[in-house]
Every structure is written in C-alpha cells, then in structure tokens.
C-alpha cells in the first residue's frame, strides 16, 4: 500500500471513530469491512484492466481530505437559476449534504423520498439493509472508501404499481467550501413491481474553479415490470473530480432508459453495472461526453445478460478537442443460459484536434448461441464536404463546426425527456464549442 492510500485508510478509520452513535451504529460493520477492503485493494492502478487508460495520478496529487461535514448552507435564490420543469420531488444536496429546506416533495402517495442520513439516524433497517446490497462493500478502492465513509444520499422508494409522472430530481450543488475535499454520497433507489419513475440527476458547481472530488455510488433496483427513465447530467467545474458507480438490478419485464451527459470535471468517470435478473427486461443506455483541454472523461459499461430474453442497447458519443481525453469501455456479457438476448453497443467519437485522444474498447462476450448482438466504434473528424456545404450557405467555419457538433450529439440529447435539459445541454455544447475555437 502506498503512502497516499495509508493516509486515506487512516482518515477513514478516524472518520468512523468520530461518527456519532446515531450515524454510525447501523452501518459500522460494513464501514469497517470496507476500510479493511480498502486496505487490501489500495487505489486502482494502471495494472488493472479497468483502470489502464484512466490515470488517477492527478487525482491523488490533489491530496483531497476526507472530512466529516455536517453543515452546508445555500440560499434558495442560489439554486433558483438551475431549476427546470416542475417535479414530484427534488432532493437538493449541497456539498453532499441533504438540504431539507431547499428540497421539495409534493407528497404523492406511493412515493417515499428521504435522505440516507435520516435513515441512519432513525435506524431505518429497511433502508439500511439495502445499502451495499448491489455494490457490495466495494470492488475497487474508491468504492470501498465510499462505503467506509458514506455520509448522506437519497433514498427513494416507489410502491408497487405507482406511476410518478413528474420527475424526481437529485440536484447536487458543490460550493467553494467543498474545495480540497472528497465527499462520499450514496443513493438508493427502489422501484417496486410495476412502478414507474423519471429520475433526474444533476451535478453542478457554483464556483467554476472549485476543486473537489465527488466519489459516489448509486444503487438502483427495478422490480418486475418497473420502468425507470434516468437522466443524468454531470456539469462539475472543470477542476473537479467526479466518480460515480451506478449499480442496476433489473427484474423481469422491467425497462430502464438511461441517458448521460458528461461535460464537466477535470477527471470524470462513470461506471454502469447493469444486471438482468429476470426475463423480458430491457435496458437502454445513451451517453454523450465532451472533453477539452485538461479533461479526461471515462465511461465504463458492464451489462450482464444473465437470463434469457432480455434486450440491451448502448450508444455513447463523444466530442474531443484541445488535448481532451476520453476512455470508453463497454462490456456486454451474454451468459450461456441467456438465449434470445439482444445486445447492441455503439461508440462514436468526433475528434476536433490532433492532440485529443480516445481509448475505446467495445467488447461483446457471448456464450449463448441464439442471440442477436452487434457492436461498432468510430473515431472520426468533421466531414469536409459537410463543412463546405454549410459554408456555401453562408455559415462561417466556426458556426459550421458548431452546427455539425450539435448535429453529432443531437441523437443523444434527444434521449433526454426533459425539454429543459435538452435546451440547456444544447446551449452548453454550443458554448463549449465556441470556447474550443479559442484554444
């Protein structure tokens, strides 16, 4: 174990020791086991296949501190500008801490929302039992650290057959005060059989230069025939670090439609572990990423067809410019018994500069023989003919480029159900592509 890891281990141990009874006791065993796991694993390194192209050197150099924060404060006006469409519930987290005064809950029957911190304080066993039920205590050092020192998060439960029409939003705001720190948030979402929900997750920085590390885990269970629309937009500051492991268990006939936008962060990595546990289920996952100067963005997908008659489709598109770097690793595993599976995996990258880099690795491991599977990857540049066409209609080079970049990402942006997010993301993409011209 290197020096840096032992500092973190020490900090985690101290963190656990310092927890007040109400926060600590219910999860103490898991926390200690996770600290032990971290001691064994240490930080991920390039020797591990899953981390080969995603260096964490820069992250470790930041020397982020694990602190036990109990307070963060924001005025309502500060978040006003980030609010879009009306919601069934909004849980606001400021620097990782749930803010009841900024949050809303329309009190719909069959929808229960709350914070993990409250569940810990109340010793709500039904919630706490679910913590780590999908992720385990951590399959890499960061995940283990999250389990060891998790502080807060959202707990969402939707009862059997209940359809929540308006979105449930998790709004994560980072303030300047979070700089220099790592914070461990963990969400737990449970949709009982036949429930349907539209979940929005947003990650925003109030300070464009704040430098912090969001180390998150999200555990989602979809009951039989449940349906989840999951819209995620990561727009951390360009100096922040963002890591999120999403674990998904999908029961029979359930439907998951996820769409991701990763625009921010000096370093950002999102991992999806999707597991089909009942037949007839469907998983659609789309994503877009932009990475420019000084940015690394990483998506790791791991879709496990462990039962028959399920369908999955993944489509990720990225624009790389400046010295931006992207990593895409999509693994679809179709097990022997998973006959009649359908799995399609695509990744396309648009390179706007010679200095940009992408490491893309789509993989299909197919052990069943009666399946329909495909995968494809492209790494390309803007089409000269298309540029000429646009310019011949009066657009200058930059406008033409922006329009083509928007066109490239539109397919993914259109997967966002929220009109507000679609418009917002298009604006952000245009802004980023305008900035790109100057570097």
């Amino acid at each position: 174990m290197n020096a840096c890891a032992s500092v973190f281990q020490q900090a985690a141990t101290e963190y656990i020791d310092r927890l007040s009874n109400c926060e600590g006791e219910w999860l103490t065993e898991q926390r200690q086991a996770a600290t032990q796991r971290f001691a064994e694993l240490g930080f991920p390194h390039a020797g591990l296949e899953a981390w080969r192209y995603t260096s964490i050197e820069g992250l470790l150099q930041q020397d982020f501190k694990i602190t036990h924060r109990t307070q963060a404060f924001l005025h309502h006006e500060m978040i006003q500008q980030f609010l879009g469409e009306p919601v069934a519930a909004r849980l606001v987290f400021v620097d990782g801490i749930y803010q009841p005064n900024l949050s809303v809950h329309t009190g719909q029957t069959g929808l229960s929302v709350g914070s993990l911190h409250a569940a810990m304080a109340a010793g709500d066993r039904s919630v706490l039992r679910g913590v780590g039920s999908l992720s385990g205590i951590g399959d890499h050092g960061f995940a283990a650290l999250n389990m060891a020192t998790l502080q807060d998060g959202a707990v969402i439960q939707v009862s059997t057959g209940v359809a929540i029409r308006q979105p449930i939003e998790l709004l994560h705001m980072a303030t300047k005060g979070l700089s220099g720190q790592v914070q461990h948030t963990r969400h737990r979402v449970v949709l009982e059989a036949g429930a349907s929900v539209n979940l929005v997750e947003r990650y925003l920085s109030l300070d464009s230069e704040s430098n912090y590390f969001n180390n998150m885990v999200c555990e989602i269970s979809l009951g039989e025939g449940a349906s989840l629309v999951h819209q995620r937009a990561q727009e951390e500051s360009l100096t922040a670090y963002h890591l999120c492991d999403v674990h998904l268990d999908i029961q029979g006939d359930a439907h998951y439609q996820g769409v991701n936008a990763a625009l921010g962060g000096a370093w950002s990595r999102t991992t999806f572990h999707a597991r089909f546990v009942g037949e007839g289920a469907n998983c659609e996952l789309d994503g877009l990423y932009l990475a420019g100067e000084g940015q690394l963005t990483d998506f790791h997908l791991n879709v496990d067809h462990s039962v028959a008659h399920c369908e999955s489709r993944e489509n990720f598109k990225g624009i790389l410019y400046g010295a931006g770097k992207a990593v895409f690793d999509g693994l679809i595993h179709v097990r022997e018994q998973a006959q009649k599976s359908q799995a399609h995996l695509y990744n396309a990258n648009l390179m706007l500069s010679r200095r940009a880099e992408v490491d893309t690795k789509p993989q299909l491991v197919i052990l069943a023989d009666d399946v329909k599977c495909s995968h494809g990857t492209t790494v390309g540049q803007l089409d000269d003919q298309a540029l000429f066409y646009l310019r011949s209609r009066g657009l200058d080079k930059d406008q033409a480029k922006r329009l083509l970049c928007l066109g490239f990402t539109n397919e993914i942006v259109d997967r966002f159900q929220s009109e507000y997010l679609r418009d917002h993301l298009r604006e952000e993409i245009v802004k980023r592509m305008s900035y790109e011209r100057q570097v």
Partner: protein
Amino acid sequence: MLSIKNLCASVDGKAILNGINLEVKADEVHAIMGPNGSGKSTLAHILSGRGGYTVSDGEVHYFGQNLLDLETEERAHKGVFLAMQYPVELPGVNNMTFLRESMNAIRKARGEAEIDAVSFMKRVRHRAKQVKLDEKLLKRSVNAGFSGGEKKRNEILQMMMLEPQLAILDETDSGLDIDALRTIADGVNLLRSPDRALIVVTHYQRLLDYIEPDFVHVLASGRIIRSGGKELALELEEKGYEWLLEGAAA
C-alpha cells in the same frame, strides 16, 4: 456580374479545367452542357469555393472582385449559391435550424437584422409549398434519408430562401420525375429577376424548355468548345456531342 478568364484548374496534379472563358451578366441564363467528366461540377465547385482544387491559371471576377480570393461563406454572403449535384446529408442537423442560421448569417454579413421566428416560419412554409417540399422534411435532419428528388427540392428551397444573385444549379434536374422537374423549374423561374443570373448545368434539353437559356455552352475536356443560343441545346439533343468533339480535336 461574373467574368471567367482562362480558368485552369487541377486536382492532385491532374488538369481538369483547361482555360475556361465565360461572361455572365445580370438577367442572363447560361446553360452548361457536356459529356460526363468534362469538368462541369469542378467549375461549379471552384466558383463556390470548395477546397481541393489548384487554380493554376486564369481569373474569376464577380462584381469586379476577385472571387477566388474570397472564403466560401463570403461568396455566399455576396450572393453566390450552388445547388449541388450531390447534396450532402447532415445527420442530426435540423433542416429548419440550418435554413434559419444560413439566412441569418447572410443577413448579418450584409449588415441586416436577423429574421424573426414568425416571419421566417411564414416564409419557409410559403417557399416549401412553392417547391412542393413536404413540410415534414423541414423538421428532419438536412437531406438525411431524403430521396434523390427530395434532396433536389431541398436545394431549390434553400436557393429560394437565400435569394442569391448568382445561382449555379448543378444537375438539379437529374433524377427528377417529370412533375418535379416542372415544379423546380417553376421555382427557379419565380426567382428570375433583372439583377440575378443563373448558370444551369444539365444533361437534358427538357429542363431548358422550362428555364429558357440565353446561352448554351458545351464543356468538353475542361474547355468550352462551343457556345450558342438555346437552339444549340436542341441540336445537341438530336446529334449528341460526337460531331462537336471531332470538330474540337481538329
């Protein structure tokens, strides 16, 4: 309006245009005909500023200005428009957005105010009707998955929206059914005015029945080997190019 003098151009060292001379004045329609591969599209591309060609000799003046010095978009701002033989597909780029941005870019370059959303919609609907372009196509990605005829109609729609002074139509009639040909010709004729000029590249005399040319030029091996009035097109229809090519070689 347009004056081309001894234009010579090549691609990758291969000479394609070998001394083109052409004078186009306002209110004129020039038809350019000629065998496949003779350089018609190349000429159209060079006039609109497409890269990849080396101009080794000659000059092109447009309203007294050296056209070849201008960027592609500057030419568009000054009223040059090319309806392409093979319109490009732009997946993800909304046709309507594209049209509006083009219009506004040109207006802006001319120091005019941007067109407001309502007037734009009105105009685009009106024009789409004139070229019988299904309104659904306005909401789709530019040319993506359009049929051959739909792409050509879309080119003409763009031309009608942008109202160029010098429009070059490169085989806009190819691949069109008879009714579509008529519609497109009607559209083009609507745009004719004393301060506009047209260069129509075509293989077929039929289009010229609808868009009556003042001059017909035959391009072969990168040279204009014969120019005449509209009766030349009829003669070509009847006799083909052979007799001219022989004459030119001699």
